C-alpha cells in the first residue's frame, strides 16, 4: 500500500521499536480496513458493487494481528477468507487490488473473472481462495512444502477460517496433513459465534475449538479476539514458534460478527445482548480506547488518521470506478495455460 502515507508497513515484530509502535501500526490497518469496508457497504447499498459484500467488522484486530506480523517480503504466506480485509491489507495487498475487485475493474487481480472476496496474488504469497470452506489449508500446506523443497524452512504460512469452516472435512485433512508434515503453519480460527445464521451449538460440541489442537498434536491458543494486544502477542508467539520449526499452531479468537453474514443479511437472528456479552465488543473502538488510555495517541491524531484514510479510500474507489470493465470480446475464453490444447483451437502439429 505504498500510496498511503504516513503508513505502517508489513513487518515482523522486530521491525517495531516498542509495543506502542506495533499497536498503533495494527490499529491503523484496522482503521483502513473498517473505513474501506464501510465505503464498500455504502456502494453496495447504492447498487454499485459487482457481486455480494461480506464484511470483517468486529474481526479486524484478529485478522490484522496475523497479517501484519507475517513478512511478505521474506516469503511468508497469508491466505485470507471473506472477513480478512484487515489481514490482507496488513500483509501487503494493495488498496487498489481490493477496490478493483469490488468495483469490477478489469485491472484487478482477477480481471473480472472471479470476484472480490476470492481475490489473491498467489505468486506474492496471497493464494486466491475458492468458496468451498476449509480447502485453502491444504493449498497453503503445499506452498509451504514447496518452500521446504526449495530450502526455505523459515517462512510461515497463515491461513484463516471461521467456526463454521472447522466442520469441513477439508479443514480436518489440511490441519492433520500440516501436523504430520510439521509445517510452519499458523491457523487462525475466528470463532465469531455464527456461521451465516447458525450458532456454534449447531456447529461443534466441544468447549472451545482450541481443544482440537491436542488431537492433531499441534499447539493451541484461545484468546479474546477483540483485544488487539492479546491478538498481537499470541500471533507473534505462534508465528515465531512456527518459524522455529515447532510445527502448526492453532489460534482460536473469540469474537462476534458485527454485521450480517453479507450485506444482504440484516442478521436479526443475532440477539442484541450478544454485543454486551464477553467477546461481543467492537475491536476498533476498544483499540481506540486503549490507545487513548495509554496516551499512545491523542483523539486528534486518531481523527486525522481517519480523515486521511477516508480520503485515500475515496481516491482508490474513484480510480477503480474510472477503469474499464472486462470486455467479453477481448477474453481468450480458454481455461488452459497450454493454449494449443484448449478445445476449439487447432491441435498441435
Amino acid at each position, binding site marked *: 500500500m505504498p500510496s498511503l502515507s504516513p503508513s505502517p508497513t508489513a513487518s515482523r515484530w522486530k521491525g517495531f521499536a516498542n509495543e506502542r509502535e506495533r499497536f498503533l501500526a495494527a490499529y491503523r490497518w484496522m482503521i483502513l480496513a473498517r473505513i474501506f469496508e464501510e465505503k464498500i457497504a455504502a456502494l453496495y447499498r447504492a447498487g454499485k458493487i459487482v457481486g455480494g459484500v461480506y464484511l470483517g467488522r468486529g474481526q479486524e484486530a484478529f485478522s490484522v494481528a496475523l497479517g501484519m506480523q507475517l513478512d511478505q517480503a521474506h516469503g511468508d504466506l497469508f491466505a485470507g477468507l471473506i472477513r480478512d480485509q484487515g489481514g490482507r491489507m496488513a500483509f501487503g495487498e494493495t488498496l487498489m487490488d481490493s477496490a478493483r475487485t469490488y468495483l469490477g475493474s478489469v485491472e484487478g487481480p*482477477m480481471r473480472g473473472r472471479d470476484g472480490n472476496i476470492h481475490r489473491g496474488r498467489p505468486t506474492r504469497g496471497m493464494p486466491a481462495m475458492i468458496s*468451498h470452506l476449509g480447502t485453502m489449508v491444504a493449498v497453503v500446506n503445499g506452498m509451504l512444502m514447496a518452500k521446504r523443497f526449495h530450502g526455505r524452512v523459515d517462512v510461515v504460512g497463515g491461513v484463516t477460517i471461521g467456526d463454521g469452516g472447522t466442520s469441513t472435512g477439508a479443514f480436518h485433512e489440511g490441519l492433520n496433513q500440516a501436523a504430520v508434515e510439521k509445517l510452519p503453519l499458523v491457523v487462525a480460527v475466528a470463532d465469531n459465534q455464527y*456461521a451465516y445464521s447458525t450458532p456454534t451449538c449447531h456447529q461443534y460440541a466441544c468447549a472451545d475449538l482450541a481443544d482440537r489442537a491436542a488431537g492433531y498434536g499441534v499447539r493451541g491458543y484461545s484468546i479474546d479476539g477483540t483485544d488487539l494486544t492479546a491478538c498481537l502477542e499470541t500471533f507473534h508467539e505462534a508465528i515465531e514458534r512456527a518459524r522455529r520449526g515447532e510445527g502448526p499452531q492453532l489460534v482460536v479468537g473469540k469474537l462476534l460478527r458485527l454485521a450480517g453474514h453479507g450485506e444482504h443479511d440484516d442478521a436479526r437472528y443475532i440477539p442484541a445482548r450478544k454485543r454486551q456479552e464477553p467477546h461481543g465488543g467492537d475491536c476498533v473502538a476498544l483499540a481506540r480506547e486503549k490507545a487513548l488510555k495509554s496516551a499512545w495517541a491523542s483523539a486528534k491524531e486518531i481523527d486525522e488518521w481517519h480523515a486521511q484514510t477516508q480520503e485515500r479510500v475515496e481516491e482508490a474507489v474513484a480510480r477503480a470506478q474510472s477503469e474499464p470493465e472486462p*470486455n467479453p*470480446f477481448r477474453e481468450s*475464453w480458454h481455461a488452459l495455460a497450454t493454449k494449443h490444447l484448449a478445445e476449439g483451437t487447432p491441435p498441435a502439429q
Partner: protein
Amino acid sequence: MSITYLDAIREAQARALEEDPNVFIYGQDVADFGGAFKATKGLAERFPGRVIDAPISEDAIVGSAVGAAIEGMRPIVEMQFADFSAVAFNQIVNQSATHYWRTGVPCPITIRLPSGGTEGSGPFHSQSVESLYAHYPGLIVMTPATVEDAYGMLLEAIRIEDPVIFCEHKLLYYHLKADALPRSVLPVGKARIARVGRHASVVACSAMVHEALRAARVLADEGWEIEVVDLRTAKPIDTDTILASVARTGRLLAVAESFPWGGITAEVVSRVVTEGFHLLDAPPQRLNSKDTPVPYHPNLWRAHRPTWQSIAASVRHLLGL
C-alpha cells in the same frame, strides 16, 4: 394470487412434510433462518423438529441422509449452492446412488441444488451440475423450468424411492410466477412441448427453456416456427418425445447451461442421431456455456452462457439462414 418458482419449492416441501411424517429437511441455515434463498421459510416453525440446521459438512449431510433413508425416512437435503455439492460428491455418487443396486434397500433422498448462473456470482456460486450426476447410475436428475414443475416434480422427487438430484435454477426463483399451484403435472420422465413449431426443435431444460422460448418468439416475428422441448428431467431423458419433435421439424438444436464437454447436449444429440438419424434434414447443433469457469463479472457472464440471442443465432444457422 401469484406464486413464484421459489414459493412453489417451499409449498411442495410444506405439503410433503404435512403428508408424510417421515419427511424432514436438513441443511445449512434451513431452520429458523429459512435457508439462504428462503426456500424453507416458516417450515421450522410449522413443523417443529423436522427442519434441522446442519454444520458445514456436506459430506456428512448427504451420508446421514442416506442412513436416515435406509431406516425409512425421506430426507430433503438443501445445499446452499449446487457448487457445494462437489464436497458431497462421493456420498452422492458412491453411497446414495449405489445403495439400492448393491443392497436391494432403496435410498429415497432428495438433494435440492440451487443451480445455475446469476450476475456477479462467479465460478463457485453458478454451476449447473446436472450432467455430472446424470452420468452416474442410480440417480434421477430433475431440472424443472416452470413454477408448476418446481412444485409437482419436487413432490414427486420426495415420493420416489430413489435418490433425486433436484436442480432448481436461482435465476427463476423470484421472477418466474404462476397464478396457482398445479393440480397435476406430467409424469416424471416425460418431456414437455413448451412451444409448438415445425421448422426446428430446440431441446433445453431449466432456465434455458425460457431463453429458448424468447428466441422462438423473436424468430416467429421472422416467420419461423420453432418448437421448444422442455426436458424436465436430465435423467431419464425422454428420447421418444424428442424424436417425435425432430420427426416433425427435421432439425435439432440442443441447449444447456453446463460446460460444453459431454453433458446434456451431447447426450440429446447422440440419442437423436443413433435412434433417429433419418429424421434429420440438417446436422444437429449444440449450444453450451463456454469451456471456462463461470465468470464473475456480468459482462463476461452474459457472454459465457447461452442466451436468447445466441440461441436465435444458432437456430438461424440450423435453418441455413
